């Protein structure tokens, strides 16, 4: 079995507008890849398309998880197959507590006649909340309801830690975070790094990559990857700016 997340020649449209253009990328399990790029280049579209959002029409290409195509799967099946999307803008769900929400997600992964053991569940939930410096009282609060930006993002990482995905896509997880919150989120992600997780970190700014050091950096522009390289590429991009990306895109288009 191949141990990687493969995105192959993915073309994605919203309505009449094509956003992703023959997009290809492979994230081997155990590695963290970063995607950087200017606004409007299709980064969030990529995240939503991988997760199976119905508004994003995949006109061709596929996404393969450990050798198995997930293109025919609904969003919930993709999640249960081991994919996780940390949302840029997590939804608020009034009246559904974090504890019940995560429990429902975990129960969905069990055979129909089985349920989580409650004491074990809370033990594991509290351990992960402690790690992410989330007050335990939050278990009784409604998911994202009235949370600050930082709390929402930590709550996303908490869900990721509890669901233990094979591959995680983190969409602008750094947006709206102050430096302290950013460090906590990064620590959380780093603690999950290892041979069982592949991660794709989508970000607009290099700042996050000071704390989550990527194995590979990809630069994205106009719906495709225009350059890939080691972590230093992020610094180069930071110093040369996104104008440079346009030049790179020109070269890619010309080649």
């Amino acid at each position, binding site marked *: 079995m191949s141990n990687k997340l493969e995105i192959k020649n993915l073309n994605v449209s919203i309505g009449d507008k094509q956003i992703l253009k023959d997009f290809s990328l492979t994230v081997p399990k155990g590695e963290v890849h970063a995607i950087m790029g200017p606004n409007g280049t299709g980064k969030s579209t990529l995240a939503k398309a991988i*997760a*199976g*959002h*119905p508004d994003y029409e995949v006109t061709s290409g596929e996404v393969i998880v450990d050798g198995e195509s997930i293109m025919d799967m*609904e*969003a*919930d099946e*993709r*999640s*249960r197959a081991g994919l*996780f*999307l940390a*949302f840029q803008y*997590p*939804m608020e*769900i*009034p*009246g*559904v507590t974090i504890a*019940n*929400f*995560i429990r*429902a*997600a975990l129960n*969905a*992964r069990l055979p129909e006649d089985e349920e989580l053991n409650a004491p074990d569940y809370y033990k594991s939930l509290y351990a992960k909340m402690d790690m992410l410096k989330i007050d335990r009282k939050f278990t009784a609060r*409604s998911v994202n309801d009235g949370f600050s930006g930082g709390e929402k993002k930590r709550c996303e990482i908490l*869900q990721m830690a509890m*669901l233990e995905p094979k591959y995680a896509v983190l969409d602008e997880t750094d947006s709206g975070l102050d430096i302290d919150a950013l460090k906590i989120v990064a620590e959380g992600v780093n603690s999950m790094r290892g041979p069982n997780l592949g991660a794709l970190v989508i970000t607009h700014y290099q700042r996050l990559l000071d704390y989550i050091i990527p194995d590979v950096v990809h630069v994205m522009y106009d719906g495709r990857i225009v350059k890939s390289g080691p972590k230093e590429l992020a610094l180069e991009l930071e110093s040369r700016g996104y104008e440079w990306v346009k030049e790179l895109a020109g070269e890619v288009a010309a080649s």
Partner: protein
Amino acid sequence: MSESSDAISPIKEAFNRHIEDLDTAPSWWKKSKSEAFDTFESIALPTRRDEPWRFATVKGLELTDVRFAALPSISDAASLVARSNFIENFSGRFVFGDDQTLQADRISPELAEKGVIWAPFREAVSKHGDIVKDYFMKQEAALGSEKFAALHRAFMENGALLYVPRGVEIEDAFVVYNWSINAGSAIFPHTLVITEDLAKVKLVEANLSATEDAAAFSCGVNHIFAGVGSTVDYTLLQNFNEQTLGFQINSNVAGKDSNVKTISVNVGCKRYRSETHGQIKGAGSKVEMLSLAVADHDQEIDQRTLQTHSAPNAVSDLLFKNALVDNARTIFSGLIKVDPGAQQTDAYQTNRNLLLSGTAEANSLPGLEIDANDVKCSHGATTSQIEDEEIFYMLARGITREKAQELIVYGFFEEILERISCETVAENARQIIQDKFKKRLSK
């Protein structure tokens, strides 16, 4: 025996039999019943042209299939009493089955010593006649069901009287279970709560069916008289089977500086009509009127409310939330009335409907009638569907679409459920709602 040649209507005949069966009851009680029956007969059946019945189904209100004053046969009393277990620690419990007393758990000697009265109505009529004369059905039905309030008064024969004297605070709730048992039977649940100054009490009422398929009729009344500075906390769980036609006519009078909270959880009935009147008669009082309904298939839940402010500096807060599936219908019609003297009133009225299908129908008629000039009043009604993005967020966590919808509905109701003060009652309410969804999935 009835003669077919008699012109007398079956319901009149049943009423005569009912009065005969009350042979030992005081004559004033029988007289008041006879007057009520005359009132019932004198009021025309509602039509949809009547404003208080707008949008409601009025067909079937002739009650031709109902057997009034039938002698019930109750074979499974013990199991019904065993199922009457929403609260473990209660101050008193009555279990009624087709209006017969199946179980009466009395108050402790300490409470009796303090003057608390907790009596089944039959007993109350003979032993506490003065209280019954002063308070029984002394709050007029004001929202359209005058005819059915009269019917209730004519036929009711059981229920609970709870009287709490001055300064007595009781922590553990009182609880009443009204079981509908036999097909075609009519029950008339009645709870009457009277608190004197500074008293504090909780009452929980559960209206339930013994079986899934016995079509029956229920016409209940709850009246609360909250004395000065007293606190009354009332919760009603209505989970009759979906063959039942139900009426519930509730009203409360809030005295000066009193706190009254009423919560209704409506899950059952084929058709259910509830009327809730908050009468803010004392300055500085606070009245909360909360309700939730979950309606599916062809259920119709018809809710009429009135908040009458006739004293200053008082607060009333109404929140009715409905979730609708399939072809279900709900009606919310609410009015806030502020009298000229009720300055500094804070009155809120909110109706929120969540549609889970394209064929469900939520009707909302909020209203204000304000004759004072220094008040804060707001009313609002919204009807919405579950947002796709909310569902997608849950799908992205591996939760199935059905489960995601369910969780959103449960979450929608939490705003009401978390305000139920007895935790085990809230838990039972949650369970009843969840069971309704489970039943849908298993069909």
